[in-house]
């Protein structure tokens, strides 16, 4: 368990709240669809804060305008990767934005071992910091 007040990874929009139910996730998806965003699903077993590229579970669903369809994909992803981190991301292609507009975690492993902070001490009291995931130090298939 991680030592921050939530005991877990706090990335995403809603990590400080109780886990969202499927009905609550659907409401968020609908909000994004009303805004014209495209939803996509990503998963990983290496949630390092600088690990930008989680694995894509299929392509972003640009043409899908129905929350139920996104939920179907999410269920399939959860079945395939039950102990991975899974996040839903909404993409806004408006000129001048062209970036992610929403992102929240919808699946996480039961045990979240967190990260080690490695300090490399240098001259003048300078310290170089490295954040390393405990789980990521094991081979890919054995992390969670």
């Amino acid at each position, binding site marked *: 368990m*991680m*030592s*921050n*007040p*939530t005991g877990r*990874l*706090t*990335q995403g*929009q*809603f*990590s*400080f*709240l*109780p886990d*969202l139910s499927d009905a*609550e996730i659907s*409401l*968020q998806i609908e*909000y994004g669809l009303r805004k014209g965003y495209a939803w996509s699903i990503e998963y990983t077993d290496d*949630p*390092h*804060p*600088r690990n*930008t590229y989680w694995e894509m579970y299929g392509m972003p669903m640009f043409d899908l305008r129905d929350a139920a369809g996104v939920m179907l994909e999410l269920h399939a992803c959860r079945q395939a990767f039950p102990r991975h981190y899974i996040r839903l*991301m*909404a993409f806004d292609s408006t*000129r*001048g*934005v*062209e*970036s*992610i*507009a*929403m*992102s*929240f975690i919808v699946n996480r492993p039961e045990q979240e071992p*967190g*990260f*080690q*902070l490695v300090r490399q001490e240098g001259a003048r*009291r*300078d*310290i*170089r*910091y490295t*954040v390393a995931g405990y789980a990521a130090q094991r081979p890919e298939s054995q992390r969670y």
Partner: protein
Amino acid sequence: MSTDADLNAISDAKKRYSAGVLKYRQMGYWDADYVPRDTDVICLFRITPQEGVDPIEAAAAVAGESSTATWTVVWTDRLTACDSYRAKAYQVEPVPNAPGQFFAWVAYDLILFEEGSIANMTASLIGNVFSFKPLKAARLEDIRIPVAYVKTFKGPPTGLVVERERLDKFGRPLLGATTKPKLGLSARNYGRVIYEGLKGGLDFMKDDENINSQPFMHWRDRFLYVMEGVNKASAVTGEVKGSYLNVTGATVEDMYERAEFAKELGSVVVMVDLVVGWSAIQSMANWARRNDMIVHMHRAGHGTYTRQKNHGVSFRVIAKWLRLAGCDHLHAGTAVGKLEGDPKTVQGYYHVCRDAYTHRDLERGLFFDQDWADLRKVMPVASGGIHAGQMHQLIDLFGDDVILQFGGGTIGHPAGIQAGAVANRVALESMVKARNEGRDILREGPDILQAAARFCTPLRQALETWKDVSFNYQSTDTSDYAPTPACAL
């Protein structure tokens, strides 16, 4: 208003340039028929002429004194294409409900300004004219900057879209806190506050505007302890964290030295105070562009010239200049907190920071359409006397692209700094979730917070501690246009 023909510009060159004193409007600084060009800079001044000074002559004087004029006729004008260098006042209207005050529109040809230099633009527009005796007071209310001139500026080094990508934080306001007390903490104790706040759930901590390198805390010591706190918090939360390291110093060389060290330590952000001046700000913006750094701008000192309505420069103008000059964060007001700010007027500043195209909106104090020509956007910062119990109002007023900074509202929490941070983060996430679910947060906000407080003790304590705190004072700087009546402009 006088339309007396002999008060208008003198077309006979011999008469116009014979030695002596003419009225500014006779010299050609007033042209009621002038149609501003797309490439002109347009300024709207609020002027209060001295008793007996004709408002049109006063407007012409403003145009003259902020461009080519001096108090008397000079023959050397005739060595230049002087008509194009003259700014032209072209419209004067009484300010609604403000006897003695007038709005004056003045257009400036693009040739008057050096490309990419706020220092040059301000030296013209607010140089001498604000001390001009025939005016009791003058205020630069708003400015339209032509696309042709916008494109000579590089703007925010990072911009709010790329900032979010770098921080991996989307779909909600960011959370910050200013380390308190402002002065006196040793670097070691200072870093403790940073760590506690970030571990508790904040995205950013912040140096205050007057934390530079005083006897109690040398800048280098502060940077080292702060970065220990930032990195440790990042490891225990799995999130990217930051702390605005204030690099403001006595000289630009000092600022470069401090910024370089912040970069070496892996900080994602540095901070500069507005008091360093336009040229230093543009230099730091260039440095930040070279080094992939976010620049946090604290608007220290602005209240001396932005707050009073009759004299000075409106903050919306300062915000436009800062977006061009290049900062990524800008303190733009809270509306509900302890510092000056009428809600609609403050929303106007947020538009200036974040819009791709700002539309004229008199109720919010925006007098001009402004095309930003794809210039990156500035992340506005709401800071000063706000707390978790106002979360619904803050999100309703400002939306997602804002940094909400709860300094006292984090560090003053009865159960400690981490608890204060948790309270703010839970309040924030609950409110964003509820808004997205379609709930009316302005009406249901207090209920939404109470519901979240049932599973979150720190939030319950925060709501209890600050339940009666509000700063309901009359704003000084408000729109002159009531929401309903039609406006003749």
